[in-house]
């Protein structure tokens, strides 16, 4: 169960704080290939499983992963939605205005023909 963030900005702050760490980004990349256990996620790093668990907790709190119990192992699952939101608001500003103004050019041409 992902905790409900208290607000949109808090949620974004959590996402970026979580993404600021290279190990956590590497874990997300690994999870793109599919759900994985703590042991599987710890394997590529020279890191203990408790250390990896700490990173997973941060990712879970940011809503970037969810975790479920399967038999004796705990599986981590990548959640893409918060990333999409973060991408949307960080990266799309230039695209927003570039694309809008390109369409405004076309609209103005139409309006000129009408008048």
């Amino acid at each position, binding site marked *: 169960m992902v905790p409900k963030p208290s607000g949109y900005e808090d949620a974004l702050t959590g996402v970026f704080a979580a993404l600021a760490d290279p190990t956590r980004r590497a874990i997300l990349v690994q999870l793109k290939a599919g759900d994985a256990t703590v042991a599987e996620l710890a394997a590529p790093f020279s890191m203990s499983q408790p250390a990896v668990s700490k990173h997973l907790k941060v990712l879970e709190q940011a809503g970037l992963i969810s975790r479920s119990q399967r038999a004796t192992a705990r599986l981590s699952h990548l959640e893409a939605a918060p990333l999409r939101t973060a991408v949307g608001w960080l990266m799309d500003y*230039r695209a927003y205005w570039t694309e*809008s103004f390109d369409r405004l050019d076309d609209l*103005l041409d139409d309006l000129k023909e009408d008048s």
Partner: protein
Amino acid sequence: VKIIAEPGVPQVVIVRTFKAPKALLFRAYTEPDLVKRWLGPAGLELVVNQLDPRHGGRWRWTHYDSDGKGYAFHGLYHGEPTPDRIVQTYEFDEAPGTVYLNLITFDEADGVTTLTQNTVFFAVEDRDLYVDGGMERGVVASMQQLDDLVTALAKEAHP
């Protein structure tokens, strides 16, 4: 389009020229059925919920993505909007209290109109939430790995 986002200053200035008189630009900014034809990123559909271009008049519009999720913005016009200048406040529905102020001017010469959009935020952090200036030269700038990751994931999330 020229986008100026100086580090440490909670402001963005966008400058763009159009081969059209400012009267037409003013129409494109203030008539709901025209606004919806150009405003917003490709792939998002704009619904103009309200647009009342007069002093104290309210505006509200919503961008819908392909999953049907809406991103609504709203605010007020301050001063009578004219083909020379429009002053309006902006607030994203999901970030109430984080208001930004927009001054849009239209400057026409020889049939070419220069549009300048000057946006002021409370804080640099607020600006960086909206502007890719943060992506280009801020904390996130060096994170090529993050860039690649989120781009790939965003593509996957948008089949």
